[in-house]
């Protein structure tokens, strides 16, 4: 079970907040703020809603009042009918294609922890070498939604450390496609994190590469991938002019050499095949999908726009995760996701995917698709 209702309480004056605060304005020394988590949650109110609205387009849906043993309450949107008095909990799944959806309730740490725990957590100890692959493909501020939100990665690192991973065993890796790697790391907000925590951020373009081959396609893959015990992919979930959407599957392509990438990107068909075949030679990895902001419209670059989705996704199956993101956004099927499903890279059949945490239908909202514009000059 995963705990849902959280409050932040000042241990000196007992005032409570529904979001994380660092200092209590009633206590001159700032108080001592502690997080309290409800262990048992039950339904104390239910309403069935029949009016659609842009972020809640599918009706009917239900909003529950949940209450924990401390008397703390929260609303929760669901599609399944509950009765007053029912117990409410989020159950974990160890299904290999399980996808967790968690809405961020102001607290990135809690959302990331909940998402990963819902899919069974990560098996790590103090000797585990972890490689984290965010999306820092371009020099851009994080609020523009072109790059992974550093708050999500920071929460992930904190979670790993809490689970026993040594900071010195955590490495970030990325290859910037547009602009300078150092400037991109700095502008995207990752520079501050790696400096504060003393974490390495590898420029993949300067890596050693390991040669792999799948179905006649050659890949030069960064050596760090194979030197790690656990790879965690942290893509930002975006719409994409050529691919429809990009998320887990596409983000891993920047772990191959620039020349290799250029060759595979020559035509869209080859790119789709390359993304999928790459996954035949990559080790299994965990994906933490960043939709804290997310992108909609003519992504994945500056013509896209922030979608403010306020959620994170997690899965051991990148195909299932991308499929679920596509479905949340009510977007059309993407060719690379369907092909990945067909070639058993993962599961693209929504009927087979186990969604845990927030319900998929309760999270659906119509994202603007990438349909192009006369303003955009494709290179």
């Amino acid at each position, binding site marked *: 079970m995963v705990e849902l209702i959280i409050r932040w309480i000042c241990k000196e004056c007992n005032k*409570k907040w*529904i*979001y994380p605060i660092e200092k209590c304005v009633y206590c001159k020394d700032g108080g001592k703020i502690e997080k309290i988590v409800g262990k048992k949650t039950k339904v*104390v*109110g*239910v*309403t*069935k*809603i*029949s*009016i*659609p*609205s*842009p*972020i*809640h387009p599918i009706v009917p*849906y239900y*909003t529950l*009042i949940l209450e924990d043993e401390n008397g703390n*309450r*929260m*609303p*929760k*949107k669901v599609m399944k009918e509950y009765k*007053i008095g029912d117990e409410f909990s989020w159950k974990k799944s160890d299904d290999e294609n399980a996808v967790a959806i968690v*809405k*961020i*309730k*102001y607290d990135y740490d809690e959302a990331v922890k909940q998402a990963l725990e819902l899919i069974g957590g990560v098996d790590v100890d103090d000797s585990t070498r972890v490689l984290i692959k965010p999306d820092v493909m371009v020099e851009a501020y994080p609020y523009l939604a072109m790059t992974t939100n550093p708050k999500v990665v920071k929460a992930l690192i904190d979670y790993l450390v809490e689970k026993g991973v040594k900071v010195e065993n955590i490495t970030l890796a990325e290859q910037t496609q547009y602009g300078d790697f150092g400037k991109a790391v700095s502008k995207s907000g990752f520079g501050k994190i790696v400096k504060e925590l003393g974490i390495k951020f590898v420029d993949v373009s300067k890596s050693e590469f390991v040669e792999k081959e799948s179905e006649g396609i050659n890949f030069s893959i960064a050596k760090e991938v194979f030197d790690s015990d656990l790879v965690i992919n942290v893509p930002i979930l975006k719409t994409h002019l050529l691919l429809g959407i990009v998320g887990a599957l596409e983000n891993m392509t920047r772990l191959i050499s620039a020349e290799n990438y250029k060759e595979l990107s020559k035509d869209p068909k080859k790119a789709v095949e390359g993304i999928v075949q790459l996954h035949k030679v990559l080790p299994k990895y965990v994906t933490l999908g960043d939709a804290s902001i997310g992108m909609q419209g003519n992504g994945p670059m500056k013509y896209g726009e922030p979608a403010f989705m*306020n959620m994170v996704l997690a899965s051991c199956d990148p195909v299932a995760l991308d499929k679920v993101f596509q479905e949340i956004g009510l977007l059309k099927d993407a060719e690379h996701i369907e092909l990945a499903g067909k070639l058993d890279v993962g599961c693209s059949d929504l009927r087979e995917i186990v969604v845990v945490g927030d319900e998929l239908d*309760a999270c659906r909202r119509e994202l603007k698709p990438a349909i192009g514009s006369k303003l955009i000059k494709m290179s």
Partner: protein
Amino acid sequence: MYVQGVGMSKFSVDDESSFKLADDAILEALKDSNVSMEDIDAVVVATVDTLMTDERQRHYQSLLSSLLKKKIPIIRVPAVCGGGGAALWTANRLGFDNVLVVATDKIACNKTEAITNEILSAADRVWSQEEGLIFPAENALLAQQYMMKFDATSDDLAMIAHKNHENAFLNPKAAFYGKKVGLDKIKNSPVVASPLRLFDCSISVNGAAATILTKDKTDIEIAGSGFATDYLMTMERDSLVEFKASKLASEQAYNQAEIGASSVDVLEVHDAFTILELMSYEDLGFCKKGEGSKMIRDGVTKLDGKLPVNTGGGLKARGHPISPTGLAQVYEIVKQLRGECGDRQISKHKYGMTQNIGGVGASISVNIFKNVGG
């Protein structure tokens, strides 16, 4: 302060600009008063930051400067649905000789989904907006909690809606003026968020209302004026069956006016949803907690009852243009106290009260008006 004049536009879904509506309301208020535009020292304006219609204007102070051809202080007091009442509360304390209080909003000229979504921005982003708590839903949950705890039914709520439609039928400024809405139609309207039906919800309209306050004695005095706030997310509050801010604001107003609830002859409450009128009877001290439904069942709050409530049709049937609602309530009370309400005129008229709510009980103003003679 005293009320010099009141004015309001017709509340409707007609496609009129917010400044045209404001112009209508201000002109009527000036005609109703003994002052001219030259005498106005300051303006307090309430509007919402809506981007959902063809209007896109956040610097309303300057827009009013242009409309009124004045370069005096123009202060904006946005408090969503409670904007009009909050603006009046503010103007009453500013110390100017003659203050124009005006509220105007154009919110009705778009798809229902867009209006619903825009209004939702008055709720907590992460908890309420993301979890589907559109305003009818949040109020439906309050209604459910209330009905579980006290003796109240959906039929009681339908009677509130019916009473307010009956009153609006007689009010030429109301959206439902001259339109009969029977109890059966109300009871059989579709459920929008259980247990609330469509006719438990107020109608979104465009409109404006204005009040001119003065230091000089007139026939209507602001005898008491209270304002209080509460946490944005209802579920963070101690109780889901009362609005603490309503109690606090009314206590302030009663203390200033040196009267109790029993002295109030006519009442305007914020019935954005019928359950809110029921809860307001109690929160404002007109009956004990849990006994609100008895007031509607016994006909106490009808036009010919002991305490007529929402004689102009309320938000329910006069219409709810967001910020102007609080000043439309003032318009109705002032007209009632002066005996100028025609077919809907009540018999007793010394004290009248308005209660205007922003969000779901998140900011509430309560004003008591006294007829002190001409």
